């Protein structure tokens, strides 16, 4: 499994990259809720929410073509349900669902493309998510690509063994479980021997005036657009 392109994007430096993770997380949640509850048609949705998102793309320095490609990639599920709604309730309803899905996907991509994963999880913990859940997710992400590398080896080994592939695949999955279990035991022993309590929280600098300004402008825009154009 290749490391996702978002990981390299998140390591960049731009106005949006430098913003406080908590502000970005809350802003995206507000934006997603506004998109979901909007009663506007597809044109109103794309125009109304497309503006702040286009500004976000410009401020993030992320490649627009790459973002568009990823939005289309993650929309396979939405396209099938939008088509179902299109057939049942007419093209208008299908187009609304498609627009809402695309705008939501772009909002999440902007967050994940400008904030490293460990920082998003850490911020979620600070905002009240259960600490054990955050810790498990941190370990999961840290070891995901190591275990996935093992899975690729196991898959090749199963294919080379030939014969009844079902049994070979089951054996490969079980061997992968064994390798993962051993790795977890080694991590635990190493942690206990060092006296480490778990994943250390990264230092967060306090939110700046620019962070509050970004959040404030977005909330004011959404509130104003909803009042003025029923967005």
């Amino acid at each position, binding site marked *: 499994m290749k490391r996702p392109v978002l990981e390299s994007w998140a390591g960049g430096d731009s106005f949006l990259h430098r913003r406080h993770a908590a502000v970005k997380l809350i802003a995206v949640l507000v934006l997603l809720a506004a998109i979901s509850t909007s009663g506007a048609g597809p044109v109103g949705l794309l125009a109304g929410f497309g503006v702040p998102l286009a500004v976000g793309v410009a401020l993030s320095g992320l490649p627009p073509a790459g973002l568009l490609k990823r939005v289309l990639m993650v929309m396979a599920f939405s396209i099938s349900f939008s088509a179902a709604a299109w057939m049942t309730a007419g093209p208008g*309803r299908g187009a609304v669902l498609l627009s809402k899905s*695309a705008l939501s996907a772009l909002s999440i991509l902007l967050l994940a493309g400008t904030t490293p994963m460990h920082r998003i999880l850490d911020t979620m913990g600070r905002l009240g998510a259960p600490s*054990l859940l955050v*810790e498990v997710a941190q*370990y*999961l992400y840290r070891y995901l690509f190591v*275990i996935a590398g093992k899975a690729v080896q196991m*898959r090749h080994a199963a294919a080379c063994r030939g014969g009844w592939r079902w049994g070979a695949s089951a054996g490969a999955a079980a061997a992968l479980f064994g390798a*993962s279990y051993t790795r977890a035991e080694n991590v635990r022993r190493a942690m206990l021997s060092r006296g480490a309590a778990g994943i250390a929280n990264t230092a967060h600098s306090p939110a700046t005036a620019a962070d509050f300004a970004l959040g404030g402008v977005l909330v004011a825009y959404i509130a104003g657009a909803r009042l003025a154009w029923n967005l």
Partner: protein
Amino acid sequence: MHISDGLLAAPVWAGLGAVSAASVSLISRRVAGRLEEGRAPLLGVMGAFVFAAQMINFPVAAGTSGHLVGSALLAAVLGPGAASLVMTAILLVQALVFQDGGILALGANVFNMALVGVWAGYLPYRHLAATGWRTGGVFLGGLTSVIAASCLAILELRLSIPVHNAIVTASLGWFLVSALIEGAITAAVFQSMQRMNPGWVEARPGGASRIRGVLAAGAVLLASVGAVLASSLPDGLEKLLEDAGAASLARTLVSTPLADYEVQFLASPWIRTAGAGLAGLAIIFSVCALGARYVRRKNGGQSR
């Protein structure tokens, strides 16, 4: 089946988000209280294992292949509480890193796959693990976890989006096939793990009963498939009464608190029906719980 953002109606994602947040918080506290020191990495690495194991293909038929989903396998290996927590972490990472499932829809996805999916997968296994039907328990667990999670996803999408009954029925057929494949894969991987190291899949003591195991799987299947079919087909009894012209008379004579299976103060007819259904379930559950308490007291406090 990961639901992405933009598809669910606000009452659905908000309601399920609140239920999932409260449940995961409670489960997290319970698991943390019981977890040995330094065991959090094990849970994280088990999550990475499920992620990675999904890359191993199992040949199904005519050149197609399937892969492990993993809810039931995690429940059998870690227990339901820890499995729910690990599945929640998997869904969180999938939503943020791979955009597989939405952020607002995370509550619904956690409810379907990490809470109901894990427990539906664990119930048959729990009762069958200490009997001779252990592998059968794992197979039924895999099957019920996928069926329950998929049917819930269909119901939530139907509450939010107008979808033809034919599409719902076709989806249900596809999910039944996927559930059978998941059951078979889970059982095959479980057997291989047992052969390699029986210590990985030790059965927890207590609760052994073949009848209860099969009944649990049957109940989950009936409830899941029945709920989806009931949402897409007209009520048979109601249709019969309409045809006989007795419905209007019955409506006049009989007025119950959940009249016509709808809670009247809610706006959408779907929400009204679902709300009335949930209220009915809560009443039936309360009556059963009170009955069980009475029977237990009568038997001198011995649980059966």
